């Protein structure tokens, strides 16, 4: 019987190939790539005009917000190709693993929207300025935020059956958690009593960690620990859950 290659290398190759497929598909959405930056640019303009002293925080926040809202893109794309195109059936009933399918969409989305994010990073290098330590920290928390948001986006995408409901709900969810907590503004301006909540939300936790490096002493050592451990644990838990969820939902109940 002719079987297809299923060794680890081909599974990895399959995931990479599907990522590139997703990138190729989404790269056609030029307007979407442009509009993905509107909130960040508008907020940066306001901060520049009204509170120039917070521009560094806002710039780092804009990068984190951009990575966080990639989860919304993952949600939209995964739901769209499942509900509208039924292509999930084509890919899931194949040697590409369900985890590879989820990762393929997530990495494809990241590649598509990476350009504008790198522009923000370039601006941050000049204006913040981004030191090597801060740069490494930004990369680490940025990856965590992206992975958390993409995992959450994929999991939520599997619960919708109607595209109209998806667009509004996804937009609300990701904008709410990306704008209200102290992502764009200093964490010290956030009510003290509610600070633990902000430090447990991945985008604001990531922003707080960077703010603490930018201005040492912004967070107490316990708050910093809460933000770092919280972000790491939430990211790992959400990613592992998403992979398991992808596997579970590959076979509908």
């Amino acid at each position: 019987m002719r079987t297809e290659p299923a060794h680890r290398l081909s599974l990895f190759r399959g995931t990479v190939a599907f990522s590139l497929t997703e990138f190729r598909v989404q790269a056609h959405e030029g307007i979407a790539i442009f509009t993905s930056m509107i909130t960040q640019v508008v907020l940066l303009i306001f901060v520049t005009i009204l509170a120039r002293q917070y521009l560094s925080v806002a710039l780092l926040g804009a990068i984190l917000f951009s990575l966080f809202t990639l989860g919304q893109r993952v949600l939209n794309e995964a739901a769209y190709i499942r509900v509208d195109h039924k292509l999930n059936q084509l890919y899931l009933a194949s040697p590409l693993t369900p985890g590879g399918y989820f990762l393929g969409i997530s990495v494809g989305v990241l590649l598509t929207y990476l350009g504008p994010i790198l522009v923000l990073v370039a601006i941050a290098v000049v204006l913040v300025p981004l030191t090597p330590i801060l740069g490494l920290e930004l990369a680490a928390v940025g990856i965590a935020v992206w992975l958390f948001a993409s995992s959450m986006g994929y999991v939520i995408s599997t619960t919708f059956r109607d595209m109209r409901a998806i667009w509004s709900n996804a937009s609300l969810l990701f904008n709410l958690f990306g704008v209200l907590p102290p992502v764009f503004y200093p964490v010290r301006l956030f009510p003290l009593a509610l600070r633990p909540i902000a430090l447990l939300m991945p985008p604001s936790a990531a922003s707080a960690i960077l703010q603490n490096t930018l201005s040492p002493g912004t967070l107490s050592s316990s708050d910093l620990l809460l933000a770092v451990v919280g972000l790491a644990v939430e990211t790992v838990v959400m990613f592992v859950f998403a992979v398991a969820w992808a596997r579970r939902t590959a076979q509908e109940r």
Partner: protein
Amino acid sequence: MTGEALHATDVRKTYRIRGGPTVEALSGVSMTVQRGERVALLGRNGAGKTTFLKIASTLLTPTSGQIEVFGHDVGSTPDEVRRLIAVVPQEGKPFFHLTPREQIYTYLCARGFDRRTAKERTSAVLGEMGLDEVADRLSITLSGGQRQRTMVATVIATAAPLLFLDEPTIGMDPFGRRSVWESLRGLTRRGSTILLTTHYLDEAEALSNRLYVVERGRVLVEGTADSLKQQVGGTLRVSIAGGVAFTSTFASFGGSVADGGTLHVILDPSRLTEILNLAVASGLSATVGPVTLEEAFLRVVGRSIDED
């Protein structure tokens, strides 16, 4: 090549619709598909064909029962099964922003094929399916039939050991359908096995070695197209113009259906001369033709509905 490609035993599927009734989509389906066969699942809308295909292709869990694909249990070893199958989903559409060439090529790469093999297979299947002319146009600009052909070509290019095709030629013109049929015949000649659903009964007859008629989640009939036709009492249809007024005269020949003033009688070829002589003696004209699979299907399923 011998052996079973698919073996299903008493497969049941019950859906619990939130706030609604419980629906039994499959009520104990058992079937076997031999390696190298082309088998069609026929049935009305909602009969359970797609549900069965989804379970067999690892996309849906059954409430009870078991399906094995090449000896691998679909429920407990889906990863093993997925290496051996490919699926054309019902109402599936290719990525709108990929060309048919890109769609097929990237799908093969995602399945783990190396780039050279993927490229060769893509070119071959595009030619085979008559998609050469539109191979480099974005799918969003293609007609519905061309998109469907792209979906089928994507799956055919895998040459997977077992292919599930849910209404593969829906929306295609007759040329497109025939190119799909020819490709599928070629695939089974090379060793693949095919399980498909279709509402085109001429397609089922032209393409499948065997067929299963499914109604309300259970198998009504299994066999070849000819054996299904035999179950309606004969293989010939005699259409007698104005025969409705003489229904009782022709009652002894077999089952009859009135269509306007014309009486269609289905009978065994051994009684053909007899009925034609009687029609002429009654001053009526008659035409003779073979019973179609559609007529047999309508009779078999209709009888089941009446009984229920």
